[in-house]
């Protein structure tokens, strides 16, 4: 699957493993189940590790382990299952997670902006056309009214800093 990072197609150095897959060399992303059942073995490998959460699995389940992960992948089984937006906010705002937060599943250009604002910084998309649409998708709307997990400044802050008329 093509991966968008920092607005461009990027090499994906991570391998996502299903529960029945053999462990492989190099950086891997495992499911929550596998993490919970094989935690010690996975840690002893000494290679970077990521975890993938289904849309009914909150990162709160991993709160104590988050510093072990370089990637947390959040699943969108359907684009309109919006739980992962809150999970991303929790990862960034509550747990100060500094690694990659990756959107996987039904990830569409029309949601890039929302995802980015909630703290996602990597996006697995169905095809490369989505990458071409990136720039437009995240700049179409330039005004934000609410604080998010991104660097955009909400209108409230901009209004307060504007020189008195």
């Amino acid at each position, binding site marked *: 699957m093509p991966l968008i990072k920092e607005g461009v197609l990027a090499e994906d150095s991570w391998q996502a493993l299903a529960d029945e897959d053999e462990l492989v060399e190099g950086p891997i992303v495992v499911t929550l189940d596998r993490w919970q059942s094989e935690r010690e073995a996975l840690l002893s490998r000494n290679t970077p590790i990521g975890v993938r959460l289904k849309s009914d699995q909150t990162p709160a389940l991993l709160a104590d382990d988050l510093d072990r992960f370089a990637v947390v992948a959040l699943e969108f089984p359907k684009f309109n299952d*919006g739980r992962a937006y809150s999970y991303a906010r929790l990862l960034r705002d509550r747990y100060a997670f500094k690694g990659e937060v990756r959107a996987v599943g039904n990830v569409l250009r029309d949601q890039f902006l929302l995802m980015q604002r909630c703290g996602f910084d990597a996006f697995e998309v169905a095809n490369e056309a989505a990458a071409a649409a990136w720039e437009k998708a995240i700049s179409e*709307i330039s005004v934000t009214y609410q604080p998010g997990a991104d660097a955009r400044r909400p209108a409230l802050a901009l209004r307060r800093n504007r020189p008195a008329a």
Partner: protein
Amino acid sequence: MYRYDEFDHTLVNERVHQFRDQVERRLSGELTEDQFKPLRLMNGLYLQLHAYMLRVAVPYGTLSSTQMRKLAYVARRYDKGYGHFTTRQNIQFNWPKLEETPDILADLAEVEMHAIQTSGNCIRNTTSDQFAGAAADEIEDPRVYCEIIRQWSTLHPEFTFLPRKFKIAVTGADHDRAAVRVHDIGLQMCRNEAGEVGFEVVVGGGLGRTPVIGQTIREFLPKQHLLSYLEAILRVYNQLGRRDNLYKARIKILVRSEGIESFRNLVEEEWSHIKESALQLPLDEIARIENYFSPPRYERLDDTVRELEVKRFEDRDFASWVRTNVSTHKQPGYAVATISLKPTGKPPGDASAWQMDAVADLAESYSHSEIRVTHEQNLVLAHVKKADLYALWSGLRDVELATPNAGLLSDMIACPGLDYCNLANARSIPVAQRISERFSDLERQHDIGGLKIKISGCINACGHHHVGHIGLLGVDKKGEEFYQITLGGSADENTAIGKIVGPAFSYDDVVDAVEDIVDTYLEYRSDGEEFSDTFRRVGLAPFKEKLYAAH
């Protein structure tokens, strides 16, 4: 009222461009209807039985006369010359062409209007008291907080794909004209012991197929924490609300299954983390928004106005309109006028382009150029000098908007029903028309007094039948239209869900049934009682007796 600054203008214009691009992608075939659907729904564009329908937001029901003229223009230019005001204080156009919708939105943007979040599983238009700013029993103008909520909720990145749509209502008055207890979140302004103004927060109310009265989650929320508390509720709901069943996805179901105590704990825990964040409202920001809603410059007037009394004496029609459609204003010498959109035999809530233009003119002449849309599908001019009431009434009469029935039996709510809606079991509007014809004698309606009849064409309850004194619900019986009747509902501070009276009535019989109910009420009512009072006292039995004994 609120005026856009450069940020608001930019956002709405960018949204128009974005939608134009999406429509072009649809028209060129790049997007299938399935792919386009969620995008158009984000902009209030529905596909109905016969055509597209565009729902335009009227934030908290407040319109300027300039905006009203633009709506008239849109009705004329892009529709069949009329629009339909809804129970969500919005307006719907029933016949726009897909390829013209971006132009409609661009025209609306010129007057600071949009269709953002008028559909979809997001935070919808926040509704309020139609008498805001004019009511004598008001603590503060609730629209200040509606506007703050409007901005915070607009394109909220985290809450665009909630389990289900989400509706917030705010009232600043003791008498609840905004039905806050049947909203996902209801905010009732109140004072704490120290005399500070804040909100009682009610959560988990709603109508639809499972009517539920909301419960208090917090007795007192200080103003500056409004947004963080809302965000905490929404964040809990977004994660835990059911997504497996459309009919169990509203927050009311979550609150019920968790129990209010446990739900409150979840919210308070979340809130403890974000309370002191950038969501905290600076007092100067509240003051900035308050400025936009500062009261008009009232003249110092006597409350007793001789011209008015003389006209009332001379002109019975005028007197009758004053009796029903004029309410008390907090300022001496002023009044609040309700413009009924329920003339006998017409679809409730419809207004033609020329009527809209006329209302805009009258608002300019007599009510500081401001108009409100009510959740009972009427319009309100909130700051009319009593001395101008006669002139206003004459102007309204010229455009057939002077029906003196506000709050009376024929001031009904009816959903679009089978005439427009593909979910309907039965017609709603024609039933409303037949009832208003049956009771067309206004003297009789005055004798009956305040009475709320509400009609929905199916269990989704768009016509709020659960909270009607008399509620009619369209059901399907072997392919025939039938109506189940509920009695004793109410949407004010004594919110109650109506009780089913018995087997449903056919389309032909339902108007007789309503008349039987009204007659029974008159028979049992004691002095000074309203329908709800009588109903609470005598219960269903006498109504059942009357309705089913003869049949």
